[in-house]
């Protein structure tokens, strides 16, 4: 249950909306109960009065007040139901925003390198599904169970006031919490694991499809397909188990409600016989209990998903980290000397590179060369402060990386990673991330330097054109150059460029190398690439291949 705590806190922030929404649901239930109960009372009263009239007894019955009451409840039920749906839907959408913002804030505080190890698409799907599971926490689980309980207490209160023996009729309903608890417990593990099992199967399916040629050639596709079907079958069976348990719980809760209503009638009638209750009131309670049953119908389904919700909460709680950024110990902004002493990058506890010692003066340039997998990117990640798996000494502008808070360290660094992301926004918005106060002229200048002016001329909206999802409207080389422009635009003392010209042809690369000099010359630069030809002019080289 602890898993839910942060999410309950999030809900609590909107307690006013939740209370109003809850009251609207409660009003709907009460109007339904009132409609049935009053109608039952009215029919019984008129029938008994009618009998007296036939027997020649002068009897009187006010038919206008109950008639009006019936009409009121009929209307009230419709109106409150409509308002409830509109209002609560609005609340759910607001909560969705809350959940997303809360999660994103936490993820943003976490260590940038942390998510890199997970397969991003799967992780994202999982995350979005989990977020969706959280925004129904209130409307499907908390509100219905709370209101069912409230209705029960209200009924008990009225019964205790009018005729305490009627309280016995609520006895069958007391088995509901037990049934719901058992249901939640039995379905807990399967519901909780279902999500993860689905994602595992999805991963296996994708692997099999992508390696289809190889499997088919080796005549291994059929066993793989059978294994996939078998796994999907296991998932189906798990789900069937959950639904069957829910079906039984549904039956049991219906049984409880109907037994309660029958008991209410029998007790009411015996109270009438002993003269403690009038006939119409005796039947009023029967129908009220029957009407109250509506508050219980959705509960089994909601409780069978308890495991799903809790699992989602637990996974989301694991994402991100809570750390408070400190501003102390920032390396001085502007270019500074970079110094590495016996610097080793590690991966899974093994050294990825040989110990590296070098000194780069302020405004100096260093190129790191090496084949793929030689540790270039990991080394740059360490310099950027997003990879902490290193030993030795790292200093920037005289500040040791160990003594500086990581946010302060990163604030003075601009880093073009190998797989940088372009947002589904305009070219200008993608660039201004790096420098929010950049003028349009600044943007045009930097775009010109990376040879994107010909592209801009073909776009009707110029720098205000959308780049599409992950920059889809641009070619690979254009995407790379836009990302390079963004990295250059960011004011920083240390500039890190990892394979800056992937997908850019040699002639353009040479042209860009010259054009971006003004952005390079004012800071300390470290480049990484597989050859000197694909990097801007550099003074010092480190070849990681020879180094080994």
């Amino acid at each position: 249950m602890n898993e839910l705590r942060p999410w309950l806190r999030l809900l609590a922030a909107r307690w006013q909306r939740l209370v109003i929404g809850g009251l609207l649901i409660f009003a709907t239930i009460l109007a339904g109960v009132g409609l049935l109960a009053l109608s039952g009372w009215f029919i019984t009263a008129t029938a008994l009065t009618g009998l007296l009239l036939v027997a020649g007894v002068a009897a009187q019955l006010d038919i206008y007040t109950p008639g009006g009451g019936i009409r009121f409840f009929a209307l009230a039920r419709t109106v409150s139901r409509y308002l409830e749906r509109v209002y609560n839907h609005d609340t759910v959408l607001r909560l969705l925003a809350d959940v997303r913002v809360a999660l994103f804030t936490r993820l943003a505080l976490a260590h940038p390198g942390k998510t890199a190890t997970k397969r991003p698409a799967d992780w994202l799907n999982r995350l979005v599904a989990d977020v969706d599971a959280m925004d129904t926490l209130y409307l499907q689980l908390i509100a219905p169970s709370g209101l069912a309980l409230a209705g029960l207490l209200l009924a008990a209160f009225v019964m205790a006031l009018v005729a305490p023996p009627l309280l016995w009729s609520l006895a069958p309903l007391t088995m509901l919490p037990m049934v719901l608890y058992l249901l939640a417990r039995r379905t807990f593990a399967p519901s909780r694991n279902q999500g993860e099992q689905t994602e595992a199967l999805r991963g296996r399916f994708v692997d099999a499809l992508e390696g289809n040629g190889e499997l088919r050639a080796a005549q291994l596709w059929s066993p793989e397909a059978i294994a996939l079907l078998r796994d999907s079958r296991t998932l189906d069976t798990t789900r069937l188990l959950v639904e069957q348990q829910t079906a039984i719980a549904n039956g049991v809760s219906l049984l409880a409600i109907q037994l309660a209503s029958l008991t209410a009638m029998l007790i009411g009638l015996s109270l009438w016989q002993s003269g403690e209750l009038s006939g119409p009131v005796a039947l009023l309670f029967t129908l009220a209990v029957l009407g109250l049953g509506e508050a219980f119908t959705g509960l089994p389904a909601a409780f069978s998903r308890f495991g799903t919700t809790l699992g989602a909460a637990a996974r989301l709680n694991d994402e991100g980290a809570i750390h408070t950024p400190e501003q102390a110990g920032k390396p001085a902004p502007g270019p500074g000397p970079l110094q590495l002493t016996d610097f080793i990058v590690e991966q899974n506890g093994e050294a990825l590179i040989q110990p590296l010692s070098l000194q780069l003066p302020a405004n100096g340039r260093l190129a790191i060369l090496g084949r793929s997998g030689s540790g270039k990117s990991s080394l740059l990640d360490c310099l950027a402060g997003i990879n902490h798996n290193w030993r030795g000494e790292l200093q920037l502008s005289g500040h040791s990386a160990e003594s500086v808070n990581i946010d302060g360290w990163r604030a003075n660094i601009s880093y073009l990673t190998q797989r940088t992301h372009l947002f589904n926004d305009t070219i200008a918005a993608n660039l201004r991330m790096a420098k929010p106060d950049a003028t349009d002229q600044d943007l045009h200048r930097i775009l010109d330097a990376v040879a994107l002016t010909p592209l801009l001329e073909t776009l009707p909206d110029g720098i205000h054109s959308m780049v599409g999802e992950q920059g889809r409207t641009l070619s690979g080389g254009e995407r790379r150059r836009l990302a390079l422009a963004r990295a250059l635009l960011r004011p920083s003392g240390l500039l890190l460029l990892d394979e800056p010209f992937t997908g850019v042809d040699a002639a353009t690369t040479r042209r860009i190398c010259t054009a971006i000099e003004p952005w390079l010359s004012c800071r300390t630069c470290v480049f990484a690439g597989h050859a000197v030809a694909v990097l801007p002019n550099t003074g010092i080289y480190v070849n990681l291949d020879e180094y080994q």
Partner: protein
Amino acid sequence: MKQRQRPALGTIRAAALAGTLAAAATIVQLGGMAWVAHQVLTGEQLPGQLLAVIILVLVAIAVRTSSVALQNRYAASASDQIRMALRRDLLDHFHRVGPVGLGQSSAGTLASEWLDQVEALHGYYAHYLPQMILSVVVPLLILVTVLWLDWLAALFLLLSAPLIPLFMALVGMGAEKLNQQHMETLGRLSGHFLDRLRGLSTLQLFDYTGPATRDIARATDEYRQVNMKTLRVAFLSSAVLEFFASIAIAVIAIYIGFGLLGYISYGPSTELTLFSGLFILLLAPEFYQPLRQLAQHYHDRATALGAAAQLRQRLNNAPEAAVVPGREVAGSSTAVVELDNVAVSFRDGRTGLEPLSLTIASPQLVAVSGPSGAGKSTLLHLIAGFLAPTSGVVRVNGELPDARPFGWLGQSPFIRQDTWAGNLRMVAPDATDQELTDALDKVGLGELIRQRPLGLDTPIQEGGAGLSGGQARRLATARLFLARYPLILMDEPTAGLDPRSEHCLLEAIRQLRDQGATIIMASHHPAVLNAADRCLTLVDGRLQDE
């Protein structure tokens, strides 16, 4: 969707039957309760009879609740067979389409169809279809009962009956619109959120997470406002149904009350008793209940229809030049690979390969080069049997191309979420650990695996995460050593590899040839061409002279 329904029909009918039984038991239960109230309150009670009716009511409740449980149980398994059959058919289809056709859709999309869209059909079979039957049968059952009690009250219900299809249409329209709007908004919202999540580390590097967070809040709120405008209208349609259900109860209650008081002297009203009055009142909400439930399940239908349309399109989409199994291969040849006047033209009119004949008589290392789009891959696909020739015959060892297992190494090798050993033993289940290590040594991965504490039992994550591209391809090559295929086809085996990985891979390929395998590689890489025994050049689908 209709023709796929057959296996579910039994379960759907059983669910509807259980639902009908529950409704009948409900009628008996409510009638019994009304009767008991009548007997006691009017003082006509006969103790023996009273007890019998109470027992009847109890039995009815038992039948009703167990029927409801049964209905849900049947519903849960309604789509079981359908989903399994669909998944199997889809896998068969993927197999028929072959690697060439599959390459046209992203694996993620196909996975979503195979898992999520197939799953989306469940609600339609489990809830919507049985409820559809029940929303006709149950009101009819109640109407007949009320007709027997008081035809005027039945008339009230009947009068609202023609409105029911209208309600359903209204509800349907509302639900569809609601569903569509909801899905669209969620889709766009998720898109925005997903985009920011994907780029999270970029945002962090640029110190831009604060503005991005505000942006998420703003976008979500904007979509909420737009969405709510439509929802306010869409919810009205279900409010109408709710309204009529409430009003019907109110009208019937007041009519019965007045009738019982003797204010209405017309028709059957004079014969109303507490029993019949109460019974009718209790039945009135049940008359509308199935419809209200149908409205709740309406979105199941919309979702399922969308999914079904997508799946139908997938299954009907005949693959380009699909492989036709079991075709006769005339002639007997001992050549490893023999292409006899083979040509390929694609459906869109493009010519893949001009008629060409080619014989590879004995084991050797063959390189196929040529500019991109010249037909190198098409040629490999033909020999692999992934693609059927438009004309001509392909023979491998005198048989159909895929009659026997052979080796295939594409750019993205198949790596399973398993250990290193598991990934290697896929093709050679009986190989010893020593043989596995030897194979890894041949591709230069032996050292890597010896360094790991778990050795061959080191797990590889799904999608080969934790392996570089070069390592994954070398692992797949190690498999070729273990399987000892007589024929190995490779499509750009060295693309995107650094020189050292490339050298390692070429060395391994030469060793494979020395072991007596025929290897055909499509590549334009000079190092690969230098290593080959024989070079074929393709230009515009035509084989140049060697």
